[in-house]
C-alpha cells in the first residue's frame, strides 16, 4: 500500500500513444467540464439571455450580470442561508455519528466473536409481530411497544436461552451490509409515520437519524476491511499494558486508519449532502435542505434556471473543494474496501 501512489506504471508511452491519450483525456475533461461551465455562465445570465437562445461566451455573446447572485444571497438572504445551514449540520452530524457507530461496529465484527442465538432472533421478530397485531386491535402504540419489549425480555431470559443454534460474525456483517440493498422508498413511509408519532417531522433530528441509518451499512462495509488489515500485535501490546477495549480502539485503531476514515467520511457526507428523496418526505420549510430548495426554483412560471444555477454552485462548492484536497484518501480508502468486500 505504501507504494500505491508513487508507482507509475512501467510503460513509457510512445509519442503516438501520448497524443492519443491526451486526446481522449482531453475529450473527457471537456465532457466533464462543459456542463459545469454552462452552469457557471447561466448563473451570470439575465433571464432574457437564457430565453433568447444559446449564448456561450461572457462579455462577447452577452453581458454578465450579478442579478441572480444578488437575489439569492441578498434578497432571499435567510431563506437561502437556512437550507444551507441545514444541509451542513445534517450532513456533518449524521456522517460523524454514522462513522462512530459504524466504525465501532466494524471493529467489533473484526475483533470479537459474536454468537447470536437463532432462538432469540425468532422471539424478537415474534414480539414485533405481536406489537403490530396489538396496535391493530386498538392498543395505543406506546403501550404496545413497552408490552412487546417486556414480553421479549421475559422470553429471552427464559425460553430464548435454550436454543443452542447460533450465527457467527459473518452472518451479522452480511445482514448489516445487505441493508444497503434496501431501496429507501420501501421504508420511507413507515419512517414518516414513526417521526410523525414522535412529532419530529420537519426537524433536523429526523433527517440526521434517518441518514445515520441509511449510511451505517456502507460505513461498516468499508471500514471492516480496513480494520482487518491493521496488525493485531499492536493491540495485544496495548492490552498487556492494561489498556481497556475502548482505549485500544480510540488511541490505536482509529489513528492507524485515518485514510479509511477520511474516505468513508467523505463518501457518506456526499451522500447526506446530496440526498433528495428522504428529505422530500421528511421535511417541509423548517428543515428544508439545499436539494429541495433547488427543486423549489421550478416555479409556476417555468424553471428559474439562473437561480437554480446559483444554488447548485453554492451547494457543490464546499464538497468540490474537499474532494480536491482529499482526493488521495478517497481512492485509497475505497480501494481497501473493494478488494476484500
Amino acid at each position, binding site marked *: 500500500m505504501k507504494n500505491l501512489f508513487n508507482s507509475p*506504471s512501467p510503460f513509457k508511452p510512445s509519442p503516438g*500513444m501520448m497524443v492519443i491519450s491526451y486526446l481522449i483525456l482531453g475529450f*473527457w475533461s471537456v465532457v466533464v467540464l462543459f456542463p459545469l461551465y454552462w452552469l457557471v455562465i447561466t448563473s451570470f445570465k439575465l433571464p432574457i439571455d437564457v430565453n433568447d437562445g*444559446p449564448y456561450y461566451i461572457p462579455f462577447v455573446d452577452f453581458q454578465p450580470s450579478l442579478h441572480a447572485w444578488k437575489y439569492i444571497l441578498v434578497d432571499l438572504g435567510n431563506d437561502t442561508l437556512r437550507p444551507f445551514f441545514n444541509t451542513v449540520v445534517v450532513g456533518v452530524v449524521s456522517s460523524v455519528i454514522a462513522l462512530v457507530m459504524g466504525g465501532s461496529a466494524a471493529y467489533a465484527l473484526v475483533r470479537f466473536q459474536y454468537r447470536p442465538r437463532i432462538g*432469540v432472533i425468532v422471539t424478537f421478530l415474534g414480539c414485533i409481530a405481536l406489537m403490530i397485531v396489538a396496535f391493530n386491535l386498538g392498543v395505543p402504540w406506546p403501550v404496545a411497544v413497552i408490552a412487546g419489549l417486556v414480553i421479549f425480555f421475559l422470553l429471552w431470559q427464559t425460553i430464548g436461552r435454550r436454543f443452542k443454534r447460533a450465527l457467527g460474525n459473518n452472518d451479522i456483517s452480511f445482514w448489516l451490509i445487505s441493508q444497503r*440493498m434496501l431501496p429507501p422508498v420501501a421504508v420511507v413511509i413507515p419512517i414518516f409515520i414513526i417521526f410523525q408519532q414522535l412529532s419530529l417531522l420537519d426537524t433536523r433530528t429526523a433527517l440526521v437519524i434517518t441518514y445515520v441509518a441509511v449510511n451505517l451499512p456502507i460505513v461498516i462495509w468499508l471500514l471492516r476491511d480496513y480494520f482487518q488489515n491493521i496488525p493485531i500485535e499492536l493491540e*495485544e501490546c496495548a492490552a498487556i499494558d492494561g489498556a481497556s477495549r475502548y482505549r485500544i480502539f480510540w488511541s490505536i485503531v482509529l489513528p492507524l486508519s485515518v485514510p479509511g476514515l477520511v474516505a468513508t467520511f467523505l463518501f457518506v457526507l456526499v451522500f447526506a449532502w446530496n440526498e433528495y*428523496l428522504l428529505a422530500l418526505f421528511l421535511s417541509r420549510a423548517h428543515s428544508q435542505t439545499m436539494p429541495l430548495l433547488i427543486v423549489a426554483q421550478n416555479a409556476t412560471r417555468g424553471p428559474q434556471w439562473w437561480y437554480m444555477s446559483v444554488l447548485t454552485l453554492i451547494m457543490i462548492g464546499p464538497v468540490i473543494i474537499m474532494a480536491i484536497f482529499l482526493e488521495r484518501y478517497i481512492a485509497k480508502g475505497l480501494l481497501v474496501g473493494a478488494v476484500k468486500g
Partner: protein
Amino acid sequence: MNVDGNTPDPVAQLSGYKDSQGPSSRVSRLGGWMEQASSSVFVMPAILVVLLLSIFPLVISLYLSLSRLKFVKGGFDINYVGFANYKKLLFGSEQRHFIGKMADISWIGWLILGAFVVLALFGLWRYSRGPFFTKMGLFWRTLTALIFTVIVWILVRTLNVEGLPGTMVNTLVFVFVGIAFQYSLGLILALLTTQNLPGRRFFRIIFLLPMMITPVGVGYMFRMLTDTGKGPFNPIWFAVGLGDFSWVDTAWGARIAVIISDTWQWTPFMFIVLLAALEGQALEPIEAALVDGASRWQIFWHITFPQILPVSTTVVLIRFIEAFKIIDLPHILTRGGPGIATESLTLHSFLAWRSLDLGGSAAVAYLLLILVTIFALAYVHLIRRRFAEGI
C-alpha cells in the same frame, strides 16, 4: 442479538491476557463490567439503529403493501386485502405501468430468448459435471435460470417495436446499459491515467468532480443541455434537422438522456477505484512480460485485467445496488416522461405515494427489493465468487 460473554476474544486468547483479576474497589468493578460488556457496547448501537429504522419499517411496509389505506375524516382506515396490490401490478390493471405492454415476440426476440435458454441449460449441465456440484447448488441455479428466463421473456416482449416498456423494464435498462458504459469508460480512463503522463494529477481531480454534485443539480444541468431550443447544442440539432422538436420528447431520446447523465455522474466512481487498483498492482510480472517482448494488449489481457478483476466485480456490485434505486435523475430531467418512458421503479413508487395509493406504493417498493435481491444474489454467487476467489 445475544452476545455470548463466555467466548474468549482473540486478543485475550493470543496474548494470554485476562482482565478479570477480581475487582476490589467499586471503580474497578465498574471498569470490569464495562470491559466485559464492551463487545455489546461496540456493536449494539449499529444493530439497534438498523433494526429500528430499516427492519421495523420494512415489516410495516410489508403490511402496508398487503392492505388498502383509505383516508377518512380524522384519520385513516386500513383494510387487509391480501396480495391484491401485487396481483394488480403483475397481472391486473397496473401491469402496463409496471411491466409494460407486451407485444408478440418477433423473430429477433425468439432468437435472444432461445440463445439465453440454451446458455442457461449449458451452464447448468456444466455445473452438474463440475467438481463443486451439490444438490442444493443445482436447485438454486435452476431456480435462478427460471427466474431469469422469465425476465428475458418480459424484456423481449416489451422492448419490442410494438411493445411499451413499463417501469420495471425501464429500471433494468438504466441499470444494465448505464453500468456497462460507466465501467468501460472508467476502465479506459483509468488505464490512460496510470501512464507516465505529465499532468495526470490534474485529470484525476477533474474526473472526480461529477460524483460530488447533487443528482438534483445534475438533472437540471442536463435539462438545460438537452434543451433543443436554448441549449448549447442548439446549432448542432439544427444542423442535423432535429431543431424543431425536442429529442427528450421521444421515448428512447429521453431514456438516452437519463443514461448519459447517469453515466456522466457515476463514471468517476468506477474510475477512481479502478485507478487505485491499477496503481496498486504488482509490477514484477509486467516488467518480466516487457522483457519477454509481450505487446501492450497481451499485458493488459493476461496480467493487468486478471489483477483488477476482483476490484472490478466489487465496484460493479456497489453500483449495481445503487443504480436500482435511481430516482432523482429521471424525476428532474424528464419527470418520468414522455408517458412513463423514463419512469424508474422508485419513481413509480413515489408517484403512487403522492397519489395516496400507499398500498400500491409499498407493493412496488417490495417488488423492487425482491428484484434487487435476486440480481445481487445471482451476481455474487455466479460471477463474483468465481473471480474474487483467492483474494
